[in-house]
């Protein structure tokens, strides 16, 4: 029997492998990485989210609070090829601003996979 059952189970952890696979399939790909955190952030430094040109994504950089904004920036990075360093702070509920409800802060680096 092959390694398949165990690999399938851990596949969502193999974010970069998926990025390479998507790129090999000819899809446009951007990689987002949590590079620093302050306070109670939901995902640790090094957590990654991979996005393709169709807004498919795998992995995570938060508990879902900032993924929408990161995907938006990832699409822009795919367009212009420029890397970006994003900063997210505490959510201001009045302003409906994108942020972290948990009160933490994170920096996310977004780069296109050329």
């Amino acid at each position, binding site marked *: 029997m092959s*390694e398949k059952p*165990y690999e399938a189970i851990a596949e969502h952890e193999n974010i970069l492998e998926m990025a390479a696979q998507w790129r090999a399939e000819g899809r446009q790909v951007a990689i987002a990485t949590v590079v620093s955190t302050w306070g109670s952030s939901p995902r*640790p430094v*090094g957590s990654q989210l991979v996005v393709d040109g169709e807004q498919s994504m795998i992995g995570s950089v938060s508990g879902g609070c900032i993924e929408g904004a990161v995907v938006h920036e990832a699409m822009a990075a795919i367009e212009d090829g420029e890397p970006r360093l994003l900063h997210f702070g505490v959510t201001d509920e009045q302003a409906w601003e994108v942020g972290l409800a948990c009160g933490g802060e994170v920096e996310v*680096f977004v780069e296109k996979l050329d």
Partner: protein
Amino acid sequence: MNSALLDTLLEAKTAKRPTALVTDLEGGAQALVIDGAEHGELALDDQVRGGIERALRRDKGETVESAGKRLFIQPFAPPKRMILVGAVHIAQSLAPMAKLTGYDVVIVDPRQAFTSRERFPGAALNHDWPDDALTALAPDRRTAVVTLTHDPKLDDPALSVALRSDAFYIGALGSTRTHGRRLERLREAGFGDNDFARIHGPIGLDIGAVSPAEIAISIMGEVTRTLHAPAEDGK
């Protein structure tokens, strides 16, 4: 990042070589460091190399300042390992849980009937006697050793090797009474209280676990707690 660099990174990761990716957060220039050898367009100084060594040791990414640049170091340390001694029912639940948590799992059991492919699809199986198997596997400080057989002939030799290793977690299944008798035998074999303090027994967090899967959860919880907070765990 360019695809060629990513391919090189993934090759090194698959080969389980200590690897770090360094990224200039300003312009996006990158360097890949595999076993200390540097690839890519970004020049590194000793301060960054020190940061790489630290990031790999702690298995934790960090940002460093170097020559006016802010650099992010992402380590790809070889995976953590879990050695399960005893291909028993609990192991059937614990092996996939550990795999899901990011461990390479090896199941050690010389009893062929227990280690069938049907019971452990895709798992690494080792049929050697536990002391030989563990000596060959050489547990290090990123390895957890869990004995599950209840059989002193199999558990004790495994524990003897584990206690002489740097394994960050050593756990032994069995009731308080079983564990007491186990420690008596280990004492006769020359081990002492400092060694015993390293063994989690009875194994697992006290969550009222009953079924094999629940016991596996309690063990996985305890291994995780020990990995992240060794000082607080008191073991």
